[in-house]
């Protein structure tokens, strides 16, 4: 069984926001909302200041609190790749999933249901990369199956140092940032 993940090389990301625009175009994200975004983290003291630019989105957690808190089962783990999805026709818009996400990765679509990144599952099931990955001009984003030791993402995580966001929240995030 596949376990999809995204690996993002923060040493290559320039924060151009192509991924954000590609997502909005591909998924008809309503104006004023976004499923992915750029975070710029500055740490250290001059002259040893570090800058990390991250393209962030739903972490498609292995233990997603949004799924366990959903009262109707609208938020669920997809059969393919463990991707966390929302069934719009089952969502009542109670916002429990929004409150349970430590990444604040979800929002309420103007039509009333909870919305978020889907890893472009409609593209992935056709053998394509998610829209954000496919347009990245610096090729800093990689998508693949962690259960396949020969996949690009598995190899990158073996070879490089990385971190995830908020591992201490205990949700098992599946977006990895190479450092």
């Amino acid at each position, binding site marked *: 069984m596949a376990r999809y993940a995204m690996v993002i090389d923060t040493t290559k990301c320039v924060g151009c926001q192509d991924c954000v625009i590609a997502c909005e175009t591909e998924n008809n994200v309503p104006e*004023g909302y976004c499923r992915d975004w750029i975070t710029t983290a500055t740490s250290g003291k001059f002259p040893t200041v570090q800058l990390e630019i991250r393209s962030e989105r739903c972490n498609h957690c292995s233990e997603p609190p949004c799924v366990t808190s959903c*009262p109707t089962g*609208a938020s669920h783990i997809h059969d393919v790749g463990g991707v966390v999805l929302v069934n719009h026709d089952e969502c*009542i*818009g109670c916002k429990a999933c929004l*409150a349970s*996400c*430590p990444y604040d990765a979800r*929002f309420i679509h103007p039509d009333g249901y909870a919305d978020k990144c889907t890893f472009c599952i409609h593209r992935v099931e056709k053998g394509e990369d998610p829209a954000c990955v496919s347009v990245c001009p610096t090729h800093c984003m990689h998508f693949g199956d962690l259960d396949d030791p020969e996949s690009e993402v598995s190899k990158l995580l073996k070879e490089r140092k990385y971190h995830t966001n908020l591992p201490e929240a205990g949700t098992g995030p599946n977006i990895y940032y190479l450092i």
Partner: protein
Amino acid sequence: MLELTTTRHNELIDPFFHAWGWEIPVYLFLGGLVAGMMIISGYFLFSGRYKETDCSCYYLPRLSFIFLSLGMLALFLDLEHKQYVWRLYTTFRVTSPMSWGSWILILVYPVLIANMLLRLPETTKQKIPLLKKISDKMNSSHNLIRNIGVINMFLGAMLGMYTGILLSSLGARPLWSTSILWLLFLMSGLSGAAAFVHLIAKNVYERELLAKADNGFLIIELFVIMLMIIGLVVSTQVHKEAAMLLLSGRYAAVFWVFVIFIGILIPLLLQLLAVNHKIHHTPLAPILVITGGIILRFVIVYAGEYSHWFIVK
């Protein structure tokens, strides 16, 4: 570390999470109040006080019915995808406190109706003879009345606990991430209900009894708040920051003034003086307790939404 999120300005999420407005605190307060009223009414049925004609157990279920319906209306108003609300009742999600709550609410109504049937208004008896027949049958069985009392107390406790568990299951908001929140909301619900009955009870003995009980509930509530804050302060940095929102931060003024002093300490003092016959009973004390209960829900919900994890590398 300075972290800047650009391009994201999602409504209800940025600049900080604020998805739940007035509806959820109002719902949690009314749910807690009804839970307390069910426990009090259930106790009076169980203990035999229902034999007194002016016992509050005869009118509390009617008021509970109205308050719970108003609470559920507030909850419904909060939903963003209202036309799919029925989906709550096509499934039961064991991991979701909201799913538990929606089914508990469905169970509460028939129990309230059973309690209401014990004393029917004269006009209802005349118009619907079948209800009169059922009521007479129920009143002829002491054991049945006691059992209705037990079920009232049990479901009331479930309802009161659920209002707290609903929030504390959401670990992404550090302020709510405490296993004692259910006890705080249960005690606050009991205290609010005792104050409410104290305010409206026709029976003098009940007023005195509930004033004394309310003092106990308020002391326990204060103790639980203290334990909750200690638990947060000695936990991780994010939990400490969450506690500081109440102790000295953004929500400190309203927490100390309206929840602790006006909602607990002042009414506790007034009621202690009253039950020791130093002053006359005053409606001010129960009104302050109820006000404090409402503001407690608002503070906990809003401060909880504001509290968050932050990324440290």
